């Protein structure tokens, strides 16, 4: 279709090459020696002043990792990663323990300002847009600041970096860390267990509804580093928490590795809502550079009527390998997965979910929207299974893929396994391009072609967007426009 001049300009400004978070912050940093052996693991553990049991845990994971092979089943292709050529720990050099924001390196604060992430509480409160989100900012390997801690403490909510939690709340960490994603889980999760450096920890006590949205902002800055963060969220009986995660990285020629692990534990009647906007650097037009995003995310509904909901907007990364899953152990528990995965340029996305029904009358819902453009490949890979004892299990799955251009690929690989007759599973998937009829209908009513496309695409992903918290929904909508409009025309 012929693009009007205005569109061409706009597209230019938002091309994949124009990744707007691609700047580098010049800051002195402290790194572990390049490579990975037991000493690296010990180095990281010592840097964090961790107790002996934690070091043992890491070393066990590391020994296990050495015996594992990198998985090859996903539809992603990349040159072999040399795990000995990475830095496993990088932290901004700092004075002894910053207690207030004033002690945080101003360069880092500037970075987050540039990214539009407010870290100064007073500013946030005085701001025109009164946002009420507590933020934990993770810069390369360490958490630099966590906001609103005091207010959360009043409610009994613990929100801090995981390294702080290991020191301050060892009993909680010991009880739950690795209980959802064990150190033996998979190649990348095991690697993460050995070398994870920071991440967020949330504990919401019994019956507490967390008074504000919690958020972590991950930023990779250093060159040649891998980022391995670990997030652990526990919602005790009857608790509720909504958690958001955002990620960006500078533009670099080489590929960087990001292997995170997220564990959610929802006890009886608890609810956890986990939202992600993933916008790591996707690489340039020729597919050079970009983040390899190999992430293990899993939630465990341990008690009756627990609920875990994953919402994700995936627009970044050169490669995404990510399957946020729910183990529905408690009776009447519920799992949800809402996803928009957009791939453009040379991006490769292999993402989906697992809903493992173990308890009685468990329900789950999967809504996945994949949009592939350029020469990208976008795969939905999901498992829905019902155990013999999971009577009355129900699942509804809907996967829609939209293809923009004839060089991209969209794939659907669902596994549906029912081991008892009372499980009712429904699955539907479609793949198509934007319907000419729909476009014609809109244009006949006076919309320009560009607006019509935007309308149709937005309409097709609306089911997912509406599950994002307000602040994120706006950002996500903009991101989708950016990721897509570069390809229409």
């Amino acid at each position, binding site marked *: 279709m012929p693009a009007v001049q205005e569109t061409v300009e706009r597209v230019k400004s938002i091309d994949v090459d124009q990744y707007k978070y691609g700047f580098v912050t010049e800051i002195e940093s402290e790194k572990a020696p390049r490579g990975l052996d037991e000493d690296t693991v010990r180095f990281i553990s010592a840097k964090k002043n961790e107790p002996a049991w934690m070091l043992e845990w890491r070393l066990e994971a590391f020994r296990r990792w050495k015996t594992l092979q990198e998985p*090859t089943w996903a539809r992603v292709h990349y040159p072999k990663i040399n795990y000995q050529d990475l830095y496993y720990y990088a932290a901004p050099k700092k004075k002894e323990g910053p207690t207030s924001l004033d002690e945080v390196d101003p360069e880092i604060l500037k970075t987050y300002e540039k990214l539009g992430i407010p870290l100064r509480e007073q500013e946030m409160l005085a701001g025109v847009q009164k946002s009420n989100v507590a933020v934990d900012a993770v810069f390369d390997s360490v958490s630099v600041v966590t906001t609103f801690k005091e207010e959360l403490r009043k409610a009994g909510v613990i929100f801090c970096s995981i390294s702080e939690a290991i020191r301050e709340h060892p009993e909680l960490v010991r009880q739950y860390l690795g209980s959802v994603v064990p150190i033996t889980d998979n190649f990348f999760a095991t690697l993460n267990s050995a070398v994870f450096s920071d991440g967020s920890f949330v504990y919401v006590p019994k019956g507490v509804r967390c008074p504000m949205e919690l958020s972590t902002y991950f930023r990779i800055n250093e060159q040649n580093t891998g980022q391995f963060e670990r997030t652990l969220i526990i919602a005790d009986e009857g608790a509720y928490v909504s958690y958001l995660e955002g990620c960006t990285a500078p533009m670099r020629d080489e590929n960087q590795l990001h292997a995170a692990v997220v564990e959610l534990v929802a006890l009886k009647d608890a609810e956890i809502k986990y939202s992600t906007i993933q916008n790591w650097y996707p690489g340039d037009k020729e597919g050079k550079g970009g983040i390899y995003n190999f992430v293990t995310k899993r939630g465990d509904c341990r008690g009756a009527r627990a609920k875990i909901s994953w919402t994700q907007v995936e627009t970044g990364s050169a490669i995404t390998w990510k399957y946020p899953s729910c183990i529905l152990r408690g009776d009447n528990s519920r799992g949800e997965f809402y996803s928009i995965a957009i791939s453009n340029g040379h991006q490769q996305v292999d993402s989906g979910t697992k809903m493992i029904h173990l308890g009685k009358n468990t329900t789950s819902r999967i809504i996945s929207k994949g949009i592939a453009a350029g020469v990208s490949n976008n795969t939905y890979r999901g498992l829905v299974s019902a155990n013999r004892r999971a009577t009355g299990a129900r699942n509804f799955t809907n996967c829609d893929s939209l293809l923009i251009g004839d060089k991209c690929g969209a*794939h659907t690989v*669902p596994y549906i396994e*029912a081991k008892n*007759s009372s499980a*009712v*599973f429904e699955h539907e*998937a479609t*793949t*198509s391009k934007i319907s000419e009829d729909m476009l014609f209908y809109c244009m006949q009513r006076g919309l320009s072609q560009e607006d019509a496309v935007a309308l149709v695409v937005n309409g097709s992903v609306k089911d997912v967007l509406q599950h994002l918290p307000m602040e994120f929904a706006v950002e996500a909508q903009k991101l989708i426009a950016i990721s897509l409009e570069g390809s229409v025309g």
Partner: protein
Amino acid sequence: MNAEIRPIRTPAEQALAASIEAARNTLPGAAGVKKLREAAAEAFIRSGLPHRRVEEWKYTDLRALVREAPPLAAPPDKNAFEQAKKLDPLPRLDARRLTLVNGAFVPELSDIASLEKGLTIVPLSRALAENNRFAQKIGELHPDTYDAALSLNTAFLNDGVLIEIADGAKLLRPIHIVNLHAGGTPSSTYARSLVVAGKNSEAVIVESFAGPEGVAYQRNSAIELQVGDKASFDFIRLQAEGAAALHLSTLLAKIGNDAKFALYPVTQGAAVSRFSVTLRFAGKGADARFAGATLLRGRQHADTTMMIHHMMPNGTSRELMKSALDNESRGIFQGRINVHPGAQKTDARMATHALMLSDKAESVNKPELEIFADDVQCGHGATSGAIDEALLFYFLARGIPRKEAEALLIHSFVAEPLEMIAHEGAREAMLARAEDWLKARS
């Protein structure tokens, strides 16, 4: 697929390898066929039986399911013919019968007199001995990737039936290829068939499988179908093996420009079975339909794996799979629609439904889409569940007993794909088979 090194062989793999070794120099054929067999034998000896880490066989782990490999069946004698004759699973079907007993073509039990104009029927063993043009067509549709069942079949390539339908020929009667097993002790049989349907030809082919109950025989069968431009070709398949049998079969099809192809597989026999279909759209504007039913009870395990390659523009395909699973049976359907680059305007729909009639039944559905062209309409739907209580209630409220109501609902569920069979006689015969299955439901 993980190319892993597994030096330890299961007893079944060792027996199969020994069997291949023994057969190696006794099987007929010219250099071309010998080469094909050698390559397949080598591939099997290298990779062995598939296990659950091999994605295509994830749910049918032959390393675990096949404990032993019985010896090759001896060529059938008069006695075997007599036994086999009684086993025809579709005796009332009015068709030209071609009978294979233990994988060997039996002219005495086949109707090869007064062939219609344009129809040629040749036993594979004769084609191999004469190295005629048919023999050279064998293996043309083999995929590049390793498949244990097909490789084994090729390694033992020996007999079967070759059918050619000339350009423009329209067969008046269906052809029924009857695969029977005779003998009271476990044995293995291999058969390979080929059908070449010329341009503008029309044919209905029925293929059936049956054998004695209670004998743990193993059958490996493969058929290649080459359907020419504008041909109309219906293939109906009934797998009604004996309850202790292992059944592995492969169907490879290639369809030309504007051809119409329909495949109706019905699975109800064997302890463990796997039916693998690979269908390639080699021409533009072709139309394919797949409508199958699987009816299982006891501890039966049946796997239907289907791959459809849309390689040319303007193709249409419709797939419908229905499985009724009783007792502790396990029904597996893996279907993949693969739209290759350039296959624009493809319109493909796949639906797979499992009806679970018992708490211990198990259904697995893996409907995949793999799409590399943008101007397409592709979709799939999958459901699994028990009989709808609301529907049952409707019957009960009208005084129809539960058993009968269930039977009616199951019938309406499984009959849908069978009613699509265009040939009346074949349709009636298949519906009757489904009816018998229902009646036997306790």
